[in-house]
């Protein structure tokens, strides 16, 4: 009956009444609504592209591409890139180097170049600036003259550092971001234990994020349960209390924790007053890891409570009743029937809290002290203080990769479709 008016084309496709394939016809009829939908999102799409996606792409690109040397030292850069990194540096390299040094000094870019090379081998900054000052008077043979000026030029390590700096597209920053060194010969070697900082920070960040996530889950789950099972009137009041932190400035909340937790603060005063600790042995609750954990848990708690709450609200009370009528005790009914039904909420809340805390910046910066700094504080340091944007970009890129991997894992294990945010 359904085929009464439909006909099949030679390739078996269903044809519309006028003989065109039905799929083409359907696409045509849907075009107007598709265009309208596209038109509605277009302004936001352009805004996001211009202000978010393109800058992020560019920043990520600086994590693998730094052309400071290649742009400012155009003569020596190709020679250095062509050099194998192990044979004796040639006279041609030295000649090009002197020419570049003269030009760079004239263009006042020598400082940039010097600090770029200095990142590969410390001490080369002064070598470059000093040599550049006298380069104008140098004559052939240039290698001998260079070595005559400073015997560091005879050291092959210096030339290796230059080669590394001269390579614009380089995995060196990603290597540095995981505490490895990318050598001139193209190998990776791990830094010594005492010089490793980033890996430790990454682990610490992941550990702190995990701890905050579990603390939020532990504290938030019972609250969500209470909210979901109270009569609507009282639940609304409680909900306002949960949401209150959202309406307060992050900075205000964080500084409030300083007032609470510092050694002369409210909490320590209470501890001394009830005699838990002596006046001379106050707990150090802030400017260390403890402070970071407490403040971050507090700030991220609503992100855990809300998804769990919305999932709990959707669980029919008859499920637990059914379990009890079938003979389950309260705890069996909870663990075998109620809890599994809340897992999508726990997953959503956990993922949200974890991803937010893995990139958290302001709270650790304010209450973390030395000990409570996370990877994001280090990225900010490289962006603002050391101006090593490429390293900052590489660290940020790794952070992004971790988040994406987590997201992928979550999708594989729990399924994104199961996630409920409210």
């Amino acid at each position, binding site marked *: 009956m359904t085929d009464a008016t439909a006909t099949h084309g030679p390739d078996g496709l269903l044809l519309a009444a006028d003989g065109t394939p039905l799929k083409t016809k359907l696409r045509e009829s849907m075009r107007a609504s598709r265009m309208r939908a596209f038109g509605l999102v277009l302004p936001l799409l352009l805004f996001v592209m211009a202000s978010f996606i393109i800058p992020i792409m560019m920043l990520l690109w600086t994590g693998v591409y730094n052309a400071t040397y290649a742009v400012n030292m155009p003569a020596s850069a190709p020679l250095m890139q062509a050099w194998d990194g192990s044979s004796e540096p040639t006279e041609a390299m030295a000649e090009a180097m002197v020419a570049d040094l003269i030009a760079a000094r004239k263009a006042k870019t020598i400082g940039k170049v010097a600090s770029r090379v200095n990142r590969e081998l410390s001490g080369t900054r002064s070598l470059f600036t000093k040599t550049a000052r006298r380069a104008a008077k140098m004559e052939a043979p240039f290698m001998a003259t260079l070595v005559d000026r400073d015997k560091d030029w005879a050291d092959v390590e210096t030339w290796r550092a230059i080669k590394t700096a001269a390579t614009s597209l380089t995995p060196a920053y990603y290597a540095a971001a995981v505490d490895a060194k990318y050598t001139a010969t193209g190998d990776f070697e791990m830094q010594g234990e005492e010089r490793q900082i980033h890996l430790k920070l990454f682990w610490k960040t992941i550990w702190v994020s995990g701890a905050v996530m579990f603390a939020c889950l532990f504290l938030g789950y019972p609250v969500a349960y209470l909210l979901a099972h109270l009569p609507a009137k009282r639940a609304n009041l409680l909900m306002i209390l949960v949401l209150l932190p959202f309406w307060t400035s992050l900075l205000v909340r964080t500084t409030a924790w300083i007032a609470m937790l510092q050694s002369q603060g409210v909490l320590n005063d209470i501890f001394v007053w009830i005699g838990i600790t002596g006046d001379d042995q106050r707990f150090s609750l802030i400017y260390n890891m403890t402070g970071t954990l407490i403040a971050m848990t507090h700030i991220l708690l609503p992100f855990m409570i809300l998804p769990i709450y919305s999932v709990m609200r959707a669980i*029919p009370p*008859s*499920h637990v*009743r*059914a*379990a*009890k*009528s*079938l*003979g*389950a*005790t*309260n705890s*069996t*009914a909870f663990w*075998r*029937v109620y809890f*599994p*039904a809340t897992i999508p909420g726990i997953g959503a809340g956990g993922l949200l809290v974890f991803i937010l805390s893995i990139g958290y910046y302001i709270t650790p910066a304010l209450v973390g002290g030395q000990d409570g700094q996370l990877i994001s504080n280090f990225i900010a340091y490289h962006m603002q203080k050391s101006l090593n944007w490429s390293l900052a970009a590489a660290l940020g890129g790794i952070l992004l990769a971790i988040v994406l991997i987590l997201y992928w894992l979550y999708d594989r294990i729990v399924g994104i479709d199961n996630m409920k945010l409210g």
Partner: protein
Amino acid sequence: MAETGTERPFVHFDGVQKSYDGETLVVKNLNLEIAPGEFVTMLGPSGSGKTTCLMMLAGFEAATHGEIFLKGQPINNVPPHKRNIGMVFQNYALFPHMTVAENLAFPLQVRKMRRRDVKEKVARALGMVQMDEFGNRKPAQLSGGQQQRVALARALVFEPELVLMDEPLGALDKQLREHMQYEIKHIHEQLGVTVVYVTHDQSEALTMSDRIAVFDDGVIQQLAPPSILYEQPDNAFVAQFIGENNRLPGKVTAIENGVARVALDQGGEVCALAINCGDVGGRTVLSIRPERVQVNSASLQNRLDGNVLELIYLGDHIRCRMQVAGRDDFIVKVPNSPEHAMLREGETCTVGWNTEDCRALDLAAHAM
């Protein structure tokens, strides 16, 4: 099956009251005895207290006053999971993260039954509801009727002696609902379990039950087998709630050998069985079933004039709305048979009935 009193009641509500807010009683002084193996339905409009009674029996609500006995034992202080009562919920309440087989195994596992026995019992329960092939499906992959069967099997798999059903067929479409009614009835007959069934659908109650308790306003208005309930309602509420009913208000002028003479408000005097009409001079409502009214029949004791307002052809009978004794909602079901007179709209005729078919009942204000 329906005889109570001959054996010890299986379930016994003794003066049970329930209030949620301390101001109004949802259940007022409930006394009910249910025999072993009996199928009792609690029927009533929403808010009549029937579901509350079921929840008290299941243990999810506590009685404010009075005691509930199960096999002679008071169960007010027994928690739900120790009552060993199977229950089918309105929306099935199947556990969505478990397969059908896991759902059925749940009550057996919490009873620490051996794995082999669990498997065997689950298979048997699935067979009973003809769902053998669906053991590995999740509830979301089943249709409403299939979920209903699984819920039924789950409530029976641990072999409870008492099964409660809270409007279990409410979410199904009409055809499936009727089919499931027979299926539940057959399972009840096979297993011999005691069933307490809650519904607001009277045809469901009439189809399945041994006895029906009609609830209204927190009180059982009448407790009787379906035929008695329909043919001999005790009061105006039951007469109105079960089946279709014509009501004629009037005043009792005499009572003689259980037969009351009633002067109708709009003129005319008829006889009716004096069931619940008070004394002479009291007001009453007469109740006559539409199929017991006869048209243009000279041999009847009670006759009134009627004016045909509307005719609806329904195949086996013709539904006729008439104006009788000043009321224009008087319904007569005229059988579609050769010996019956065909009526036309606007026609005037006489309607009549036997005194035994007319009952003089109370003046239930809220049923008017």
